[in-house]
Structure formats: C-alpha cells, structure tokens
C-alpha cells in the first residue's frame, strides 16, 4: 500500500492506525437520485425500461485509501467509472491497512464482503485466500486489457500464486495501482550548509558525508525505530543496494520462497553497517523512542540530512522544497543496485463475483484503476503510479519527478528489489525485533542474520 510497504507486518509502517477506519460511500445511481416529483417520474420511467444485466449491478469495493488526499482521488476515479457505466452502483468501504487485513479473509470466509478488494500480496493474505479459492484469477483480464504491457512482469509476478502455494508463479490474482520504493531522501540545504555540494553516489561517499555532517554538529540520519519499520527499511535498502540486477536471482528465490539462505556476506555487512551507524551516533538522539511519523515530521522541518524510507512519504516531503529523493547508493563496482520496492496492495476480484457478468464488470473496474487516466490522477496528487506515466501529459511535483526517475530506471534495469519480510509470515516480526536488539548492540551482525535465516528455514520446512 502507498503508506506502508504492505508487508506481513502487523502494524502500520508509517501512518496513523487511529485515523479514519471505516467509511462507506455510495456513488452512481443512488448518488444521482434527485428529490421530488422529477425523481419519481425518472424512477417510473427507469423501472419501465428493460434493464441489461450490467445496468443492475452493484460493485462492493474495499480499499485502503483512507488518507484525505487518497480518498479524494479514489472518489473522483469511482465517479468517473460510474459515469462511463450508467446504472452501476459502487458501494465503497475505505479501511486502514490494519482493519483491511484483519477483516477481509474472515469476511470472505463467511460468504460476505466485497466483490473487489485491495489485498496484501504476502503468504498470509493473498496466498492464503488464493489457496482457499476466495480470490479469482485475473489472467483473462490481463490478456484482454493488456495489463502486461502497462506493468512489467516482475511487478505482476508479485500477485502470482500457484495451486501448490508457491509465490511468484501460477495464476495472477491481482494488479496494483501504485508503485513503491525505499530510497534515500536528502536535504540539499542541510548538506550544502555542511559544505557538501552533491548527494553521495556510493556507500563510501555516504560514509564521508556522515563524518562531515557529524563534525558540523548536524544529525546525519533522521530515523525513528519505535515501530521497527524504519530500521527494517534501512537494513533492506543497504543490503539490496550492494546486489546488482544481474545477480538478483538468489534474492528473488529467497523472497519467493524457492529457498536459499539469508546468511550471506552481503546481509552481515549491511547489518554491521546499520549497527555501526547506531553505535557511532549517526542517528537522531532518542531515535528508539519515536516512530516514523515523528522522524518524517522532523526531517521535513529541516532536522537531519538523510532519511531512508519509502515513496509513501512523497506527499509530506513535498512540504520542504530542499528535500530530494534518490536510490540508496550501492557499493562501488555494483551495477544497477537493487532498489527495495514493489507495488501497493493489489486490486483483486473475490469469489463473491458469482456470475460472469459481475466478474467482467469487476475486470473493467480493475482495468480503469490501472489505466493511464488513473495513473495521471494519482501522479497529480503526488503518488507514484505503478504503470509508466505519460509524463508529458501530467504535471507532477518536483519530488515525484525524482522518484519517477528512480522508478523508471529501476524498471528498465530490472533492479526493483523486494521487501525482505515477504519471505515468511513471521519475518517482519523476527526482523524488527532483532534489528532493535542489533541497534542496541545486544547481538552481533552474524547473530542477527542467523536469527532471520532460522525464521526462514523454519517456514520453508513447514508444510504449506
């Protein structure tokens, strides 16, 4: 999802769990109803006309677009879809990420719930629902509408589950609207004030910049680890930045559950790097007690030179024109470093779409949600569309321009990486718990890597 990295994580990565949780909005025919005699006449005329099956349909949709700006965009998109589909009604429910993952599976299991829903791609959500036939494959619509030309196969693979429960292969169960990446936000003014004219191009330059910033009394890294997700993103970004696109197969295999080991020199080095940063005082003092939202707020206000996090913060970061976005620099000699990222929760069609007409209408809805028009609407609002944007037709904020450049490069070079916690249902907790201990100096990088590998191997050995 756009605000989160839609991992298996229990808590929201970076948005308030306490904001809007449930709102139902009705559009379409119901919305268009007029009061008074005119509406009665219209209704009489309407009822007298023979209805086609499509005209009588209601689409119940669940999504996680609960932030005000997101709600505004999805509302407009729904209205546009309805304008093109007279007589169709949309009953939309917007739920926070936590509420959505808590309720979707259980609701579908009871035979109730939406016809269309956003769903998390991990084993716990999409994998489990695909296995129970609660979701319908959308391959027919991929072929019909050409979604495979809008989004790379690497992105679509994140919605694939085989009948045997294998991730990344088999039928495709959804498609996403938005893309996500974890990268390096930097404040150009803070860097310049410290005598640094350009952002770091390599990890070695980053180390030099950190030393310079510390000497000037500037906080190098703004970070808050109270909820664990920022440290996970930092570790993942540093780790994957040292893997070139040409060497990505082993990492793909790990995340897609094909096997392998987390106990690699790359991961140990990345763990050591973040531990050294923490021990060296390169993080904001008191970082353990603040959450990501606080860290972002401080960064936007001009505190700190760097912040490693995702594109879901682009909107907030736009508040400070000195802030820019780039990929986390890789080690020298690494070509096309992997960029942690993926797509937001996928639009899926549930088993509640009983008949072909409803399924096709749902397919049309999904097609509209990944259309150029929808992508333009999201980009205009500052969000990163998963589909390639026709940049010449859309005016995007400057910071989104930075992110789009990284996104396009990553897609072209096949260097879009993964959220490592997708690798097992418990990996998010294992990683965040152990990262807290690692940063506090309570375990060695080797022990940290061994702990996450143990989690993974236990998952691989368990019956699927």
């Amino acid at each position, binding site marked *: 999802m756009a605000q989160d990295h839609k991992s298996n994580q229990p808590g929201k990565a970076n948005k308030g769990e306490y904001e809007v949780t449930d709102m139902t909005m009705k559009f379409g025919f119901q919305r268009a109803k007029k009061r008074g005699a005119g509406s009665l006449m219209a209704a009489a005329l309407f009822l007298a006309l023979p209805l086609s099956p499509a005209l009588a349909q209601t689409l119940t949709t669940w999504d996680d677009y609960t932030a005000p700006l997101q709600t505004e965009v999805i509302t407009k998109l729904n209205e546009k879809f309805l304008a093109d589909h007279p007589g169709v009604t949309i009953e939309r429910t917007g739920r926070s990420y936590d509420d959505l993952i808590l309720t979707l599976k259980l609701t579908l299991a009871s035979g109730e719930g939406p016809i269309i829903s956003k769903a998390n791609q991990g084993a716990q959500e999409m994998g489990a629902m695909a296995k129970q036939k609660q979701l319908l494959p959308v391959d027919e619509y991929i072929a019909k509408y050409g979604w495979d030309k809008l989004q790379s196969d690497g992105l679509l693979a994140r919605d694939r589950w085989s009948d045997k429960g294998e991730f990344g292969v088999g039928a495709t169960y959804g498609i996403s609207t938005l893309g996500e990446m974890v990268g390096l936000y930097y404040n150009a003014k803070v860097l310049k004030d410290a005598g640094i004219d350009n952002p770091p191009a390599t990890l070695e330059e980053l180390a030099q910049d950190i030393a310079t910033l510390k000497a000037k009394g500037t906080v190098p890294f703004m970070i808050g680890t109270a909820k664990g997700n920022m440290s996970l993103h930092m570790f993942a970004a540093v780790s994957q930045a040292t893997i070139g696109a040409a060497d990505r197969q082993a990492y793909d295999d790990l995340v897609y559950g094909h096997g392998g080991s987390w106990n690699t020199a790359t991961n140990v080095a990345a763990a050591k790097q973040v531990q050294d940063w923490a021990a060296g005082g390169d993080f904001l003092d008191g970082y353990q*007690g603040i959450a990501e939202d606080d860290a972002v707020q401080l960064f936007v206000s001009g505190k700190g030179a760097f912040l490693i996090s995702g594109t879901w913060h682009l909107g907030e970061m736009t508040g400070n024109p000195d802030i820019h976005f780039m990929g986390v620099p890789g080690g020298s000699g690494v070509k096309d470093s992997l960029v942690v990222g993926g797509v937001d929760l996928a639009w899926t069609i549930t088993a509640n779409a009983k008949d072909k007409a409803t399924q096709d209408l749902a397919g049309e809805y999904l097609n509209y949600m990944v259309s150029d028009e929808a992508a333009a609407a999201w980009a205009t609002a500052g969000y990163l569309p998963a589909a390639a944007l026709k940049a010449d037709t859309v005016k995007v904020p400057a910071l989104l321009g930075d992110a789009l450049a990284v996104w396009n490069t990553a897609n072209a070079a096949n260097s879009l990486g993964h959220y490592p916690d997708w690798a097992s249902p418990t990996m998010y907790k294992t990683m965040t*718990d152990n990262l807290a201990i690692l940063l506090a100096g309570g375990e060695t990088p080797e022990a940290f890597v061994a702990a996450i590998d143990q989690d993974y191997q236990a998952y691989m050995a368990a019956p699927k």
Partner: protein
Amino acid sequence: MLHTNTFGNLKYVLPALLVYTAFVLLPIMASIVLGFTEWGGIGMPKFVGFANYVALFSDPMFFKALRNTAVLMVFYVALPLCIGLALAVAISNIRPGERMALRMLYFMPYVMPSAVLGIIWRWLYNPIFGPLNQVLRAVGLGALALPWLGDFNFALPAVGMVATWYYLGFCMAIFMAGLQRIDASLFEAAALEGASGRQTFRYITLPSLLPEIRIVLLLTVIASIKSYDLVFTMTRGGPANETLVANLYMYQLGFELNRYGYASAVAVIGAIFILVVNGIVHRVLPTDGDNA
C-alpha cells in the same frame, strides 16, 4: 410474579441469558474448543489434541510474556494498593472540601479509557516532542532524557507507571469508603489508650480494611493479567518484546499470524491464571463475613 418452579421463572432472565450466552458463554466455549485445534481463520479447524498446550509450555516468547505480566503486577497491584491506601488515610484526615477535591483529582484518570491514556502517555514519553524530556533538559538533567518507550530497561516500567497512576485513584476511593465504615469509637479508644498513629494504622485501620484490600486485589490482579490496552497503544510489545504481555501475544498470534488455535490456548491459560490467582486471594484474605 415468581413461579414456584425454575422453568417458570426462566422467562424473566431469558433475554439477558440469551445475550450473555451469545457474547460471553459461546465465545468462551469456542476458545476452549479452538485451543485443541489448528485453525488459520478460514477452512475447517484441524483437531490437534493438546499439541498447542505442549508447544506453549516450550515457547520462550510465552514465558517472556508471562514474566512481563508478572512484573506489571507490581505496577497494577502492589503500587496502586500501597499508594492508594496511604493516600486514603492521609486524605481522610483533612477538611471535607479539600478531601473531596483531592479525591476527585486522584480518581480522575480512572474515568478515562485506558487506551486513550496510553496514547496520551506515549506522547508525554516521546523523547523529542514530549514534555517529560523537555522538562528534564530544561532543568539540566538532559542525561536522564531517555527514549523511554524504546529503551530496553525502562520501557516496561514506563508502561507500568501509567497503570499505577491509573489505578491508584480507584484503590484510594475504595479504601476511603472502607475507612468510613470503621466504627469511630475504635479510633477514639485507641487515642485514649495513647496509641501512636502507626499503631492505630497497624492494629485498627489495616485489619478493618481487609475486605476492601481483598476487593482491590481481586480487581487489580485481574486487570494486570488482562493488561493489553496500555501496552498495545504505547509500545505494541516493543522494543523487541520487552513489553510483550500474554494478551498482546494472544492478539499477535491470532489476528496477525492467523494461528487462532494456538492463540486460543494462550487465552485459556490466561483465564486459568486469573482463576488460580483469584482463588488464592479468596483463600488468603478473609471475606466480608469472616471479618464481621
């Protein structure tokens, strides 16, 4: 009108009984049954006998949650009881107007939902924006300005202190009511006999308040074993499970990892603990009737 036979009277309690059965008894029974199954929330539960319980008693995370729950008992039970008792005795001896004002002030936190208090205290403890650390820095004690809820050593006590603050007013109110129940002639006789304040408290006040102490113990012990909302809103069990408690572990297992059978086993063990501890309290402390 009451009937002579039980079934005739059943209709009077039937509406309440139906609601109680639907929302209390059936879920309890469902939890007990689910504790013997492996169930991911969808599909049919698979019967596994006592496997969940066997796994539970070799689960280090479960024992960590129990240990943290035990530590929190100090903050949920012992401290509120002692401070509440001291406050009740102290406040009872001041003028009525001041007594009422202080009683209201100390009791006020108990009126608030504890989840809301958790959110407020999370902000108070915030190491950057929170007033606690700002005050510490302002008075030159910046070295004590810790990342409270992110600190491995202080996170659990920091959560616990909020529980103490929450429950002490409640304990105080119960004890103040108890003090009003004690026959004033006992205190007069003690004064005439030249008993000191400490002796009066030791031999009159404390024994007379045993029924109230018993009530307070029962309620706060249950609250400590049930503790969830403060931890959930303040730390979600972090950092690295340092504030994980049994109920939060149950939530994580059930609603985050979809291990509903295992989570139900945790719930059943928690319920058994509450029954056992309350049974001990019942046996050790006299009932109202015993004391009378």
